[in-house]
């Protein structure tokens, strides 16, 4: 641009581009580089499990650790509003979904990290006053948006309503590891009393504990019931960290079976943590010591394991929770490799390392 002598109103010096051309071209050129993808691309090469030349069943789609992985403030908004404040996930454990949002319990930041995939935002939800979270570990969200958050330092399950307002407490004086729910019931695992407490959801009255009184079999016993999962029939699966096994109880709390034992080999557990059930009844168990997710059939036979130990871009550094999800597939579909047919997603939270939330896609490689 030429210089303007004050007061003349006329441009001198070499002739520049007409102003209107720049006004149109410049923002377009800048906006072209601003594609917003949730998470970072894990690597240039797609990461498949089992690794090639086997038929791919799982692909690591991306990892999410900070707000930069979820949102990207364009040039213009940055110019007007300033750089986007960066928020990070520090030490995640529980994961739950509601609508287009992912809720993650962050035990160090004592808050819920809320990732809104449609608004492309990552923010922290820190209830104040009576609803203050001290050490949130796990979360489950009901269909109406009521959130149940287990807090091991507060020693209660904190209930938040759909508008994230405090709505009471549950299971006080228990040390709640996990909470899961179905249409009529709440299941809360108690690490102090080594049992699972079953409540009626509407009245919040305690119905019974698992294992049931009178259950004498040592196999039915719980040691450290850290995580829970429910299948479609209402069977309860408990990931028992201290006994190195997964327990199955029916809807009335009667012991059905257990599988797994201590060890490092496939099919065994060293530090079993998160557990989830997909719609086919397959069990996903993540192990914090071996840093993989194992997939079992309903009888406890190992089908597959995936995940890579060590963290970094490949997630799984002291993993804690595993959650299966189908509703958020549209937000991640573009990350699936063209050779991989994506069916549903598996989210894994890692407590350390760089890839705090690993998003895996389960499906099948195309032949």
């Amino acid at each position, binding site marked *: 641009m030429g210089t303007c002598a004050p007061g003349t109103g006329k441009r001198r010096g070499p002739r520049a581009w007409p102003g209107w051309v720049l006004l149109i071209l410049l923002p377009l050129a800048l906006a072209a580089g601003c594609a917003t993808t949730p998470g970072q691309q894990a690597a240039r090469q797609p990461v498949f499990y089992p690794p090639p030349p086997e038929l791919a069943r799982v692909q690591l789609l991306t990892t999410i650790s900070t707000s930069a992985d979820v949102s990207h403030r364009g040039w213009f908004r940055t110019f007007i509003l300033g750089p986007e404040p960066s928020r990070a996930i520090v030490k995640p454990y529980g994961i739950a979904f509601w609508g287009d949002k992912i809720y993650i319990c962050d035990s160090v930041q004592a808050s819920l990290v809320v990732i809104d995939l449609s608004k492309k935002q990552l923010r922290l939800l820190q209830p104040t006053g009576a609803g203050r979270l001290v050490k949130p570990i796990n979360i489950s969200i009901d269909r109406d948006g009521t959130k149940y958050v287990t807090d091991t330092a507060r020693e209660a399950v904190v209930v938040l309503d759909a508008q994230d307002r405090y709505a009471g407490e549950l299971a006080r004086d228990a040390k709640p590891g996990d909470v899961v729910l179905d249409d009529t019931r709440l299941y809360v695992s108690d*690490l102090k009393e080594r049992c699972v407490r079953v409540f009626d959801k509407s009245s919040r009255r305690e119905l019974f504990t698992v294992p049931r009184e009178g259950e004498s079999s040592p196999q039915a016993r719980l040691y450290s019931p850290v995580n829970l999962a429910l299948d479609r029939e209402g069977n309860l699966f408990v990931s028992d960290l201290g006994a190195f096994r997964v327990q199955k109880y029916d809807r009335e709390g009667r012991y059905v079976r257990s599988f797994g034992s201590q060890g*490092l080999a496939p099919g065994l557990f060293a530090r079993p943590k998160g557990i989830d059930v997909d719609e086919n009844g397959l069990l996903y168990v993540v192990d*914090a010591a071996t*840093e993989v997710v194992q997939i079992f059939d309903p009888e406890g036979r190992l089908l597959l394991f995936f995940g890579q130990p*060590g963290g970094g871009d490949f997630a799984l550094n002291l993993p804690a929770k595993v959650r299966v999800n189908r509703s958020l597939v549209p937000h991640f579909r573009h990350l699936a490799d063209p050779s991989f047919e994506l069916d549903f997603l598996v989210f894994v939270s890692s407590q350390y390392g760089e890839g705090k939330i690993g998003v895996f896609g389960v499906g099948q490689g195309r032949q």
Partner: protein
Amino acid sequence: MNAVRRWAVALAIFLAAIGTRADISGSKHDFSTQTWAAGQICIVCHTPHNAGAGAGPLWNHASTATTFTLYSSPTFNGTIAQPAASTKACLSCHDGTVALDQYGGNTPQVPSLLLTGPALLGTNLSDDHPVSFAYTSALATTDGELHDPATWPSGIRTGGTIRSDMLFADQLECASCHDVHNSFSQPKLLVKSNAASALCLTCHAK
């Protein structure tokens, strides 16, 4: 001495011996009192046969089938985000659901970081003492309120310095302050008594 007094003395010695025996029985890591399946203590972490390579000697139990790679070597990159192998072994259980989360009261405190060193500690929020970082003489000099680990006595073993008794290749880990086997018979499995904050003051020059 008559027979009764002899028995009394023997009994007193016997009881004293039991009381001061330094070991994992009766400590928080004694899982046998919590009725594990086998009533054992050691099996939670160790096994004499068919062990896999891992975070500790004779770690867990491996069958003859293929094993997973356990804890690929930590890529220490100067931040505390990557716990090292021994700290990782502790953190695999102490993840917020077991005991250690109660330390320091019920409020997670962004700690008044006594170590005000340079970017070495980064902006990592934590409600636990930082681990898996290099505690060197250089850090002590930069910070100004830390004892030199190469020369300051640890107070744990005679003639031992902080570096020889508490650090692992100059790294501060969980095991710097806690002994997993409770060899020193201190509450909270510490390596020395923290009466009058003696353990804190071993490193922090306050």
